[in-house]
């Protein structure tokens, strides 16, 4: 007998207490980085699995992160999402049948729901075993799960559960009966092969038939539950076909506890991966790249090529707008990006993308971009402008300082910090002074991070700082490119003939008119 399978998300689930956003407050960075939007999109339509704790629990050990990356890579490379999707669909159907069984009132009815639940469960298991057997798995997680499942399926107990269910279903499907209704009397008997009346009618008028017409079949709203006339007819049908119905009765009594525990947990946990793969597919379809990040630890030479803000990209794609990707890298002693430049130029987006990249990597998921190397952090801190206290400048500055102080007391050299337009509620001189102080402390702690600021002076404070600038179209400074480039911060920078515009010149027309 093999070791019981534990979890597809954790090698050692006992080492990882889950953070459930339903039970405790989520950290600031969740909303600052729009991770709540991303996780919202990831968990939408999967409420029954309650995946939030998995997405809200960040991992700090690279071994577990890798465990997940392997599983995700297997699912992707072996194109297993269809396989898992089918399995999940069957498990959901099974739960639906159990609900029906629970709600049903007549014995011949509830027993049938229960039979259908078991039969669906069995085919879910059998299909999954068969499809996993063909997959060239590399991940520890899926290989162990496959071994476990193969043993389970080969067990004689499971085999008889499945075979009996199939036989019963086939026998019930073969039951055909007829009702002769005249006045208030119904005669129930076995069906005797009489012909379909609608075909007779169609045949009479066939010469008029042209194409298709409206469908006049009425959607007959049958009550959710069987009514007593139907139930009485079913009882009579059960008497006409008594052998099958007796077997059904015995089968249900014998298999009350058929569901396997580890398998049920797998059904939930695998949805973590499925949700992410499905979400990722939206972006890939639009040509946006994703990659499995490597880890720079213990070093901090992180980089990302063609990265983007997932939450923003999701919105832009829905609006059919284009998404701008950005690159960054840190070398040697470099630790902090100071981002300055024109407003509305994508600075905050850049900062969020940096934070999202690290967070998503930390839960073992692929990240936006063609290639990425990230840092496995112990804590992620964000300091974004708060809307409250508007007008009360002193209060706001104080609030800013309290928050940054709190961050700097909790942070370590393994932390990441993302600051967005802080200290805006004071004079420039004060802002420069405070910012320099705070930056010095951050550099002192050797943290990794991004600081979006209008204070260009910050970009040249230290050689640990890399200056990034939002850019505009040179010929038209009013147009933003949303490109953030690595360069030092410095100050900023229409008549084609109307016929040409309408493509109505001789040359254009020769091209446009088909010949």
């Amino acid at each position: 007998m093999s070791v019981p399978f534990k979890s597809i998300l954790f090698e050692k689930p006992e080492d990882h207490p889950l953070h459930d956003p339903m039970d405790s407050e989520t950290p600031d960075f969740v909303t600052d980085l729009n991770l709540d939007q991303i996780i919202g999109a990831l968990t939408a339509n999967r409420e029954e699995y309650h995946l939030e704790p998995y997405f809200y629990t960040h991992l700090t050990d690279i071994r577990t992160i890798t465990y997940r990356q392997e599983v995700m890579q297997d699912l992707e490379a072996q194109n297993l999402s269809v396989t898992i999707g089918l399995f999940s669909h069957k498990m959901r159907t099974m739960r639906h049948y159990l609900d029906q069984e629970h709600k049903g009132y007549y014995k011949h009815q509830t027993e049938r729901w229960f039979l259908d639940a078991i039969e669906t469960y069995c085919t879910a298991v059998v299909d999954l075993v068969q499809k996993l057997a063909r997959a060239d798995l590399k991940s520890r997680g899926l290989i162990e799960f496959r071994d476990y499942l193969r043993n389970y399926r080969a067990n004689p107990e499971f085999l008889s559960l499945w075979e009996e269910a199939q036989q019963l279903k086939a026998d019930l499907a073969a039951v055909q009966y007829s009702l002769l209704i005249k006045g208030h009397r119904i005669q129930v008997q076995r069906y005797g092969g009489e012909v379909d009346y609608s075909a007779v009618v169609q045949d009479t008028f066939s010469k008029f038939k042209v194409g298709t017409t409206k469908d006049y079949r009425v959607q007959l709203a049958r009550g959710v539950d069987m009514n007593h006339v139907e139930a009485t007819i079913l009882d009579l049908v059960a008497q006409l076909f008594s052998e099958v119905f007796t077997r059904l009765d015995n089968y249900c009594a014998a298999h009350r506890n058929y569901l396997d525990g580890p398998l049920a947990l797998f059904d939930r946990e695998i949805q973590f991966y499925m949700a992410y793969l499905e979400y990722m597919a939206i972006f890939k379809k639009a040509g946006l790249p994703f990659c499995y990040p490597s880890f720079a630890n213990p070093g901090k030479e992180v980089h990302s090529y063609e990265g983007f803000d997932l939450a923003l990209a999701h919105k832009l794609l829905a609006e059919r707008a284009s998404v701008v990707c950005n690159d960054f890298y840190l070398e040697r002693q470099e630790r902090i990006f100071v981002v300055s430049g024109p407003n509305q130029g994508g600075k905050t987006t850049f900062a969020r993308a940096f934070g999202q990249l690290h967070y998503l990597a930390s839960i073992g998921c692929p990240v936006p971009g063609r290639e990425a190397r990230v840092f496995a952090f112990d804590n992620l801190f964000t300091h974004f402008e708060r809307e409250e206290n508007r007008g009360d400048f002193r209060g706001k500055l104080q609030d800013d300082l309290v928050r940054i102080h709190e961050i700097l007391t909790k942070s370590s050299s393994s932390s990441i910090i993302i600051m967005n337009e802080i200290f805006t509620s004071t004079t420039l001189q004060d802002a420069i002074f405070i910012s320099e102080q705070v930056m010095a402390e951050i550099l002192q702690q050797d943290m990794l991070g991004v600081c979006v600021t209008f204070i260009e002076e910050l970009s040249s404070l230290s050689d640990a700082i890399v200056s990034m600038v939002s850019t505009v179209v040179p010929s038209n400074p009013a147009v933003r490119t949303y490109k953030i480039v690595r360069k030092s911060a410095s100050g900023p920078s229409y008549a084609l003939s109307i016929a040409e515009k309408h493509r109505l010149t001789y040359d254009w027309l020769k091209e446009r008119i088909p010949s």
Partner: protein
Amino acid sequence: MNVLLMHPDRDFDLAQNLPWNAQNLVEDLDLNTLFNTMAQKDQWLFDVARTSVLSSLTDPNTIQYRQHILQDCLKNPSTIRNLYGIATESMQEERKIYFGIFNSPSSVLYRSVQVLELFVRMLKKLANIAREEAEKFESEGFAQFFAMLIKEFDDEYFASLNTRLNDLRFPNGMLISAELGDGNRGTHYILRRPHDVHAGWIHRLLAAKSLTYTYSISDRDESGDRALSALRDQGLNLVANAAAQSADHILGFFTLLRTELAFYLGCVNLHEQLTDRALTACFPLPSGPEQRCHHFNELYDLCLALRAEPAPVGNDMCAENKELIVITGANQGGKSTFLRSIGIAQLMMQCGMFVPAASFCANVCDHVLTHYSRREDTAMNSGKLDEELTRISEIVEHITPRSLLLLNESFAATNEREGSEIARQILSAFMDTHIKVFFVTHLYEFAQDFYNQGRDIVLFLRAQRQDGGERTYKILEGAPLQTSYGADLYHRIFAGTPLRPGVAEHGSDNAVPSGS
């Protein structure tokens, strides 16, 4: 069952997509006057007239197929009106038979049987007309149509229809088969025709031996009663659907008949109006799309003739192998009317109608396209030119080498030099792609330039002006002139106002060499 009066091989589709520029055509060519005359206040006739005139045929054979049918109709107007009347009555009576309040299979079936009974009566009338009138018709289209009616609707068929309709009232109860569906609930309810009671003894023996359980719903069990009628409805659903669809198919036949006859009835109406006004009409001779010909005598603007007395002036033209016809000349000299008569005649020919002329022959084209300067705004600004060119560009999106394009004072929204240059580029490209263009223009620089090139695929016409400024509204061959006689117009409108010093009249027939 087909009607095939509009096309030899397919049904006429009233819901077809009209050409993208249908609205422009209607406005620029004043086609509503034509449609209204054809319709004589019958909305159905209007809709059919509109669709058929706007969706041109491009095959000369189909055009002649319709011309022959139309000739039959002009000879037998009362038969056409009778047939149209039967189709119309069938549709109107059908609409009066209401669906029940509750949408149930039994109400669907009940209504369908009533509708089918109505249609059977109407089909009998049609079959009778076919038997009595067929020999008066000569066209291929009508010969086939009447033969089809006579063949399909004999007495035997009507008898079988009546039997079937009677069976659908179920005098002996309903036999419904079923299977076990979700949760063992009965499903797949199908109404069955019981084995014939007169069937062989083996059948009866087997039937007698089968085990039967009987269940009666007590008189006071109201929910049981509802459950039972729900079961009946389950069983009737497919049969009711089949009956309702059959009724729809027959309705479809009457609708198609009414639609296709509507075109011809519209033409009959129009012809009667023309006869009343002593206006000429003839059946045109369409030639293939590859050819470039346009000959006619006494062509007049039909819509103008229908709206106004006296009858407009007819024009003659003989354009063989011409791809660009440039029309210049006096303001209010009949150029726009001439251009409109070209467009209307082309559309009428290409839907199989007679045309307003003594004789008419032209090649068919893929599209008739119009570009009329929006005259109400003559301000010279780039916004206007922009708007004009946007419309030209839209035309270019749809144009093919086999198109007919009518340009009415296009490119006039800028000064003459620029307008001429744009016109030169655009018209050169059109000529190189063999598009047939009629171009009414005041752009002298352009017209003179093209005239000097002397290309034989270009024909120059000019609105006639008699000495002294009288307009005859005749369009004749003639070289472009450097004035459009705006001064004439000025003098007429400002009759008696003395000219201010320094404003000299310039240009006259003698100012440039005449080309014809």
